[in-house]
């Protein structure tokens, strides 16, 4: 039989029993919708994680000063460790092969003021390399350059949050802000960053939008740490050429620091990329479970289709007999009923796609869960539903095709 006729017959079959067809479709609708929603939740979590680690730099090794009590600090200093220093950074850059950049940073939590407004900020002294390494994006103006660094210029780049608090809608570029008791000129404003809500290793969660960046040279010259035992800098970020060299480079860095710190463990080494891989593995198991649950509901939907198709074949035994008597082959009858099952699953699949996409949009709008729909997940869900239609329509269709024409035409 021609395909067009199969489709026509299938659709008229659906139209004849609208409510029954709809009930049959429900299983497929929910199955497809949940597959799409589940996959979009998994993908959303993945993207959020990737964004987080990109902020830390996937090719970076981060050496961070450990947070210590005063007693612990006194103890390590007594054991000759100076804490993290510019010298450590210099040595790493000179000795360790495969290192592209090394950036040192020192931090101070203080108020930044403009006119009558004030913002609690992390003031971070950095080297000009910093912007290349940490995925910072400028909203306006420029970042600190080598010349400004070399001359200890009192310039600063504001995080988006600080700029908004201090300047509202005014343009901050060129304005003077007061950091602690020093005046700095604003030369740039960063784009807004998503909130860094999770703690990664020794890196505590914080709002990157409240950062204020100044040249490390100016920082070291203008600000003095209250605690005399404090180390010179708080963090060294090391960028390596390729991510497969991260682990061995980290080992070398560790060896150097052990020697320089006289085996005092007053620092920690974080490799964002390695943490990301580990997290990815855990998430895969979770995603697999979500997907399996959704797939089971599609399977149940398929059984629903099979059930209704078996009933339909019974109901239309006589029609099958008539068609056979006027020349339909077994394969024609088979095609007709498989088409009908597929029509149910395609229609259900389409409704399911709409429902699934809306569901994941609603989830991301009304909850904290991030969702992201990749086109392939829609095709997978839809394709799977068509497959379910074919496989669960097969048995009833085969039953229909194997009915003896002579018996079925007399069936009442």
């Amino acid at each position: 039989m021609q395909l067009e006729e199969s489709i026509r017959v299938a659709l008229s079959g659906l139209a004849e029993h609208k409510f029954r067809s709809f009930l049959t479709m429900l299983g497929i609708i929910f199955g497809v919708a949940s597959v799409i929603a589940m996959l979009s939740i998994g993908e959303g979590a993945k993207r959020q994680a990737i964004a987080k680690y990109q902020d830390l730099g996937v090719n970076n090794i981060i050496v961070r000063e450990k947070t210590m009590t005063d007693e612990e600090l006194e103890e390590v200093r007594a054991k000759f460790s100076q804490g993290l220093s510019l010298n450590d950074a210099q040595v790493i850059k000179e000795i360790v092969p495969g290192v592209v950049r090394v950036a040192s940073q020192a931090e101070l939590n203080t108020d930044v003021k403009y006119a009558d407004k004030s913002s609690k900020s992390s003031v971070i002294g950095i080297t000009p390399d910093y912007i290349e390494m940490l995925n910072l994006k400028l909203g306006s103006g420029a970042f600190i350059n080598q010349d400004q660094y070399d001359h200890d210029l009192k310039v600063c780049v504001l995080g988006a949050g600080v700029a908004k608090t201090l300047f509202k809608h005014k343009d901050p570029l060129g304005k003077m802000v007061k950091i602690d008791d020093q005046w700095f000129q604003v030369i740039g404003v960063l784009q807004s960053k998503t909130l860094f809500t999770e703690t990664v290793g020794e890196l505590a969660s914080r709002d990157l939008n409240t950062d204020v960046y100044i040249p490390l040279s100016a920082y070291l010259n203008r600000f003095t740490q209250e605690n005399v035992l404090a180390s010179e800098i708080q963090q060294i970020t090391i960028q390596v050429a390729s991510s497969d060299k991260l682990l061995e480079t980290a080992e070398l860095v560790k060896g150097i620091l052990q020697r320089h710190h006289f085996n005092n463990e007053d620092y920690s080494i974080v490799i964002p990329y390695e943490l990301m891989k580990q997290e990815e593995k855990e998430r895969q198991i979770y995603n697999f479970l979500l997907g399996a649950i959704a797939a089971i509901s599609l399977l149940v939907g398929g059984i629903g289709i099979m059930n209704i198709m078996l009933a339909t074949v019974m109901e239309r035994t006589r029609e099958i007999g008539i068609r056979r008597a006027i020349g339909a082959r077994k394969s024609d009858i088979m095609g007709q009923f498989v088409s009908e099952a597929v029509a149910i699953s395609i229609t259900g699949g389409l409704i399911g796609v709409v429902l699934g996409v809306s569901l994941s949009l609603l989830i991301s709008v009304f909850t904290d869960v991030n969702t992201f729909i990749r086109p392939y997940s829609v095709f997978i869900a839809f394709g799977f539903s068509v497959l379910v239609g074919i496989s669960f329509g097969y048995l009833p269709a085969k039953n229909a095709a194997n009915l003896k024409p002579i018996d079925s035409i007399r069936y009442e």
Partner: protein
Amino acid sequence: MLIEIKNMSKNYSMDGVEVDALKNINLQIDRNEYVAIMGPSGSGKSTLMNIIGCLDTPTTGQYLFNDVDVNSLDDNSLSAMRNKEIGFVFQNFNLLPRMNSVHNVELPLIYAGIPKAERRERALNALEHVGLTERVNHKPGELSGGQRQRVAIARAMVSKPGILLADEPTGALDSKMGEEIMLLFNKLHEEGNTIILITHEQEIANHAHRIIFIKDGLIYSDRPNSLFDNQATEMTE
């Protein structure tokens, strides 16, 4: 010879009991014959019709249709045979209720793989031939019994089959409508079609030119219809 049946028997078991529906039948039907097969219910006439119509196969013996041994055909070839060579007309019409007349008539052509435009044209011609030009878009439920049977006849004739097999075609109609349908069969015969009627009514059988009686699975008598003396003499020659 269009149909040649040699030493044919058919038995089947019903609830474990062996039934001999047909016993060693020999029968020949030529092109453009108009044959009535008569017999009481359970005589085997329906079984004979099913075998002639390629809906069923004999247990033993031979059935040649146009010199083709039907027993040797597979399921697909039997379907093709029913599609192209056999036109069925049933007592209860057996139209598909969801389709209008023209689509019902088109159905055999769909299975024959005829393109849509040609299909439609041939179906409309067939409906015109049975006098139903006004009813092509009506569904069976909207037609009278006589009209439904006309649609069924149009469907049977649309693929220009070698033989028209009618099983009690007037059984579900009142006598006036039945008579009209019989006049239509007479006309189709005059146009050169081969017709086999299955009936238990003498009045209906009288339209045919040859009458075969079956009883208990055996051919009881096979004689020309005495009402048509000319043909009767021709046939005995």
